[in-house]
């Protein structure tokens, strides 16, 4: 019966993949992609919680008695659009970083920061 929990495992798997990308990759755009996957895993988590066996989409109709839970749908609907807006903000930041540093690799940026700090100390 533990197999009835498979939806959560998919979510956790996706979340782990996204999390791994965010931690292990130095490229800022790749990190943003990772964050998007992480986000989607949370979306799927909410939506799968709202799902009901033999339920129907939450639009009232004749002859349908069981609907899936509309509340998670509302939350995720807005979260998706907010998510793309914030991702766009992140991409804009990445573009500015590229212009300022000439790179979007994390370690290169750190090296440059180190250099400027050393210079200012001297």
């Amino acid at each position, binding site marked *: 019966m533990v197999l009835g929990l498979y939806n959560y495992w998919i979510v956790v798997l996706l979340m782990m993949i996204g999390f791994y990308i965010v931690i292990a990759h130095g490229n800022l755009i790749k990190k*943003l992609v990772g964050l998007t996957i992480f986000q989607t895993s949370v979306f799927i988590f909410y*939506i799968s919680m709202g*799902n009901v066996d033999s339920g129907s989409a*939450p639009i009232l109709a004749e002859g349908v008695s069981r*609907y899936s839970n509309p509340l998670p749908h509302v939350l995720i609907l807005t979260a998706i659009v907010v998510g793309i807006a914030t991702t766009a903000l992140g*991409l804009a930041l990445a573009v*500015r970083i590229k212009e300022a540093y000439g790179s979007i690799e994390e370690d290169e940026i750190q090296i440059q920061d180190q250099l400027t700090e050393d210079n200012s100390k001297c």
Partner: protein
Amino acid sequence: MIAIAIVRTKDLLAVVMLTGIYGLLSASFFVVLDAVDVAFTEASVGAGISGLLMLAAITMTGRTEAPKRHKPLLALLVVLITGGMLIYGTLDMPYFGSFDAPVHQHVAPRYINDSMQEVGVPNIVTSVLASYRAFDTLGEVAVIFTAGIGVLSLLALPQRRKPYLVDESGKEQMYKQHIVLRVISKALIPIILLFALYVQFHGDFGPGGGFQAGVIFAAAIILYAMLFGLDNAKRVFSLSLFQLLAAIGLLLYASVGVVSLFNGGNFLDYNVLADDPIAGQHLGILLIELGVGCTVASVMIIIFFNFAGRREAQQNGEER
């Protein structure tokens, strides 16, 4: 699956393509889970706009990812520990699809049973979004608006009159080469715009609403801008108009709340907007969905125009 491929691929262009497929897949997944409204949004956002924006960003930041220099082993360990703990946590969760889960006990029955009498809109998602939890939605629209302002302040270029140079002709020719694309898109764009309006105003009865409509509307205009050149698109739809519209959408939403306050109800309580509570609800939902649609569409268009404008400015700078 695709997510794993995203981890492995170094070429960011391929990553973005995979993200698009991933978005479409998760949209179909949401349909399977009966979340039609969400699927709608995810299909247009995940598979459409987000890929586009990432492409625009990649053209400015370079395509390839540098090879890794630090060990990914530690990261993998951290991720595995987190995942393991989460899976251990899920053992106590209710089974997938069971209808006696705690989530379904508290507010959802009220929404499902009473929303027809209280709000009078068949689509429960719309009535929850626009009526019961309208205050949340107002906050979310404000977040989107703020993100738009943020992108604007990060990427906006100083306003200047561009002298029309002769070397523009090369670029114009490039647009003209894609004649098939241009003809087809000319036929498609009005249909997309019409569809966006349908989604906007039909959101009470079927899946749809301001968020989806805004994104679809933005997609149509972005398509135009891509195929006919940013300058042409800016001549048709001026950027300042969209900046105005984004603000107007948010203001429209908030002012509906204030008007209902003046009419003696609570903030965003639509019952007092008209003589009949149901008519008031309809009016309120229509108005705030319009506000949401305006803001979302304009913010998406502002974001895209700024990315694209920045890129063209960079290219011109490199040519000189």
